[in-house]
């Protein structure tokens, strides 16, 4: 108990760090995932190939390896001088975007082909068809898998702690290094994650119900 009260500032900072990192990578992953899913169903072969390559690469690489690449390869080959937070953001959101993409794509596949054909025969472009006809109808089926993906993302963000980004899991290391009782630290850290993941599943359940009514 005392560990929490005595180090409330650290816990709070760690908690906020986790929330911010999850939120930012969630948003970026969502955007990337939807765009890449669009690529994967596009009539343009190079885009489709790019989409497939993206998913294959980021879905099959261990996240820790992506972190290592973001830390030690990206600065040397691509852009130097990124902050640890940005690097964590990139690793997490690229990784997660592959999963988002596949969830969105399977949602797209549940929308009857006739919907897209009707839109195209009205003269709507591929992008218009996807944005106005197909994606809105795919949303409902995509919500449940997205919820799991974002919960996984929350927990995955713990890896950033090991790379000295301030977040909840890193607090545990900091305090246990100082010799505080590990059980209590773990308990409070776990509780912190629970708060975030419960909020996510609550939010998505709400969305699911809302969209259920709209149809």
């Amino acid at each position, binding site marked *: 108990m005392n560990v929490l009260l005595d180090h409330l500032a650290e816990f709070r900072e760690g908690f906020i760090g986790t929330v911010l990192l999850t939120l930012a990578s969630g948003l970026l992953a969502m955007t990337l995932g939807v765009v890449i899913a669009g690529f994967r169903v596009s*009539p343009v072969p190079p885009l489709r190939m790019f989409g497939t390559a993206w998913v294959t690469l980021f879905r099959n690489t261990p996240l820790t390896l992506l972190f290592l690449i973001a830390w030690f390869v990206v600065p040397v080959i691509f852009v130097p001088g990124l902050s640890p937070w940005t690097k964590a953001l990139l690793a997490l959101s690229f990784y997660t975007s592959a999963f988002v993409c596949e969830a969105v794509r399977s949602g797209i596949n549940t929308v*009857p082909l*006739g*919907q897209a*054909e*009707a*839109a*195209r*025969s*009205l*003269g*709507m*472009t*591929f992008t*218009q068809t996807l944005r*106005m*006809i197909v994606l*809105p*109808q795919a949303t409902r089926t995509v919500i449940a898998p997205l919820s799991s993906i974002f919960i996984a993302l929350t927990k995955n963000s713990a890896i950033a702690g090991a790379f000295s980004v301030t977040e909840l899991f890193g607090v545990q290391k900091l305090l246990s290094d100082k010799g505080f009782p590990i059980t209590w630290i773990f308990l409070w850290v776990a509780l912190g994650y629970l708060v975030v993941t419960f909020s996510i599943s609550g939010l998505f359940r709400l969305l699911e119900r809302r969209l259920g009514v*709209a*149809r």
Partner: protein
Amino acid sequence: MTAVSVAKDSVAATDELVVLKNVNKHFGALHVLQDIDLTITRGEVVVVIGPSGSGKSTLCRTINRLETIDSGEILIDGKPLPQEGRELARLRADVGMVFQSFNLFAHKTVLENVMLGQVKVRRTDKKKAEDKARTLLDRVGVGTQADKYPAQLSGGQQQRVAIARALAMGPKVMLFDEPTSALDPEMISEVLDVMQQLARDGMTMVVVTHEMGFARSAANRVVFMADGRIVEQAAPDQFFSNPRSDRAKDFLSKILHH
């Protein structure tokens, strides 16, 4: 004098609204369309009939390039169908399509269904688009359903909305692929009535259907397809009372005995 005859020629040329020249298409090993030549003039109503699997739907769908072709040429109002992209999208807006399964946008109301293409493709302003949509919905007899979702309508009503949605684009030609095949018998006539009226108003139409009554009363020409080929074309009366080919005789004897 020469100027006049040139002008006349160009009028005659643009009278050919849809032209298919030597069109071929395969689905893998299956040769679904074989050397199809077909010209549809402005204002003409052409009914396409033939046994199941003969390629009628495929023919219909190649005309607005929902299906690509392997060889040959398709011209709409003198312009060849372009590759997939913006230009094709623009051309598709001039070709209305009505599907067997209606394909109304399930997440949009009836009114929104009829407005969407006008607003997003034709860039008509919302107010004008709504007025036109309501007028068209009234015309096909579903004006009172404007604020419902497609799933709340009967099949016949949905199909009439689909016709209104296509008409809202102000198409040069309308394609119908078995528009009444998914309907209960009592709803068939309400859709056919709308199509009859459209034909009388001078719309150019290509209609895949087994409704012989419609073919007799509304069509200028019947095109009979079998095994990916156009086997026979004739005026409806002539075709139904005196088919020339054995395939057509065989087909007619089968459907007329039901």
